[in-house]
């Protein structure tokens, strides 16, 4: 039995009673919104699993709702099905303006609508190699993104992020606090890239406390700096007052001996792909791993960008 929660956003009476009955009989939990603010609030506070959206919903409200859905980080891929008049397809729609997963036309045929919803869900499950915690794409997508960047021949920066002293943090604070830290870093990366380098970018979550993002090379320095600044601003919210005061926490090292660990910080190793330096994603990973080894030995949060002739590095500005 399906348990999906379906948000229906459209003008009053847009979903025929017969369709509603069929969907509910199939286990969909429907929430019908006729007002934009109500629909957006719902997406923000309690995101649905699917969205059925009437084109032209309160003017350009349809596009604003789509934006709200795509900005919903906690549920990455909410499939969106757009409902429109067949005649609207005669002049082609700009799918860039309507980044939806599927369309159905009016008048709504209940059985067809059901099939489209089921297909959208099945498709989403298929392409979903996302990390269950951060909802960011996982390894398959990361490899694909790297190959795409290499094939383009343009200068991109492949950036590997990881959290320093994450394991002792997890041991001391417990898994659920550890998960919060992993989410925090994911959020920071996503939000900084959204703001500063959205175009052509990719963000993936390798797993645990390791992430990869790919952005245009010229943006690398600015983005790394901002990520580290933002991390420093929120980090203390995830630490206990006594650890902050002590500037360190005590945990067991790999050999089981009591050791003082510096507080959480992040390291970013950046490899640039320009001028055909690499042919395969494996080569990038190898170069990055060497770089990471070096950057992780530095104290505090740091990034290191390897370019053809030189390295650019940045130490954290201040931990204030």
């Amino acid at each position, binding site marked *: 039995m399906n348990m999906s929660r379906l948000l229906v956003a459209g003008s009053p009476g847009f979903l025929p009673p017969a369709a509603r009955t069929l969907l509910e009989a199939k286990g969909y939990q429907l929430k019908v919104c006729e007002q934009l603010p109500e629909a957006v609030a719902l997406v*923000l*506070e309690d995101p649905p699993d699917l969205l059925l959206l009437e084109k032209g919903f309160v003017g350009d409200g349809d596009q604003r709702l789509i934006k709200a859905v795509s900005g919903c*980080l906690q549920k990455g891929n909410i499939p969106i099905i757009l409902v429109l008049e067949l005649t609207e397809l005669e002049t082609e729609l700009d799918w860039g303006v309507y980044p939806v997963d599927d369309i159905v036309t009016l008048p709504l045929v209940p059985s067809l609508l059901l099939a489209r919803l089921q297909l959208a869900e099945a498709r989403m499950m298929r392409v979903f190699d996302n990390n269950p915690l951060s909802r960011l794409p996982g390894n398959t997508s990361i490899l694909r993104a790297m190959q795409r960047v290499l094939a383009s021949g343009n200068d991109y920066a492949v950036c590997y992020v990881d959290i320093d002293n994450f394991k002792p943090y997890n041991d001391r604070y417990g898994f659920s606090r550890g998960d919060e830290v992993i989410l925090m870093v994911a959020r920071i990366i996503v939000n900084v890239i959204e*703001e500063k380098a959205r175009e052509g970018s990719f963000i993936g979550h390798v797993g645990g406390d390791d992430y990869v993002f790919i952005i245009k090379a010229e943006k690398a320095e600015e983005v790394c700096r901002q990520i580290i600044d*933002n991390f420093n601003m929120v980090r203390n919210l995830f630490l206990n007052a006594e650890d902050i005061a002590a500037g360190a926490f005590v945990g067991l090292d790999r050999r089981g001996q009591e050791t003082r660990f510096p507080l959480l910080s992040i390291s970013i190793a950046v490899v640039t792909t320009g001028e055909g330096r690499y042919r395969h994603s494996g080569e990038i990973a190898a170069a990055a791993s060497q770089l990471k080894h070096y950057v992780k030995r530095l104290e505090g949060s740091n990034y290191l960008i390897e370019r053809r002739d030189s390295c650019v590095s940045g130490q954290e500005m201040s931990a204030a």
Partner: protein
Amino acid sequence: MSPEQEQKREAIRKALREVKNLPTLPGIISKLTKMADDPDTTTEQMGRTISKDHILAAKLLKLVNSAFYGFPQRISSLSSAIILLGFNVIKSLIISASIFELMEDQDMELWEHSLGCAVVCNVLAKRLGVSDPEEVSTAGLIHDLGKVAIKMELPGESEQVSALVVSRQINRFEAERELLGLDHAEVGGWLAKSWNLPAKLVEPISCHHDPSLAKAEPLAAAIVHFADIVIRGMGYGHGPDIWVPALAPRAWELLRLKPVDIDEMLAEVEEKLWDVKGFSLDIKAEAQSATQVPKG
């Protein structure tokens, strides 16, 4: 408390539990919408504007602390909330906040009072060397959340309270207790708690009339309590209730202020309040011009 009073309290508690959306100022919404449409706007600038609206600030904190974003009861400062939610979510939040576009003079007054209280909290927290002054000013900004909730959810009762304030010449807090069996500080505290806001914010809200009740955050509660009184004394946001609440001895002990501290603090506050005044005049002017020009 009599069983009748207890019953009434329970009914009110139930009504207020349902509060999901609080009203916010239309002026600030149009300002933020404009900022959101401008590609050069930074998150920081937007944060500064949001920090001037107590309702929007409360919504933002509610959202980032909801189970959905994965940081339950962790995030207490606006700048952190913005970093973690990101620009897009904030833009969407503005749309969902615009559901309430009706504001009355009373609310404008409350808004000025909240903003003023946040300013005093900030100055005081910095002076006392509190580790995160922004948190305390956020608590100051949203300390009267309960008033807004009562007005929205129980408009009839809220009017009765106002009438009682005038007829009996008592302050709002006492009138609420008499008529509703509870007060806005308590209501604000429930609401903040039900939104998963951290204790750093909940306690200063729920104890702002009696900071001796604060267990985890006595100093923050004392600062908000004192700031509330100072800003009322300066004439910000009294509504029909013109009485400045009494200062709790416990708060005074905790703050350990000397006369010279207060002189200096007041000078600093006065200066910062000019900004606030300017901002609220801005908003008023915008709200007026918005009502004159038909919406396109």
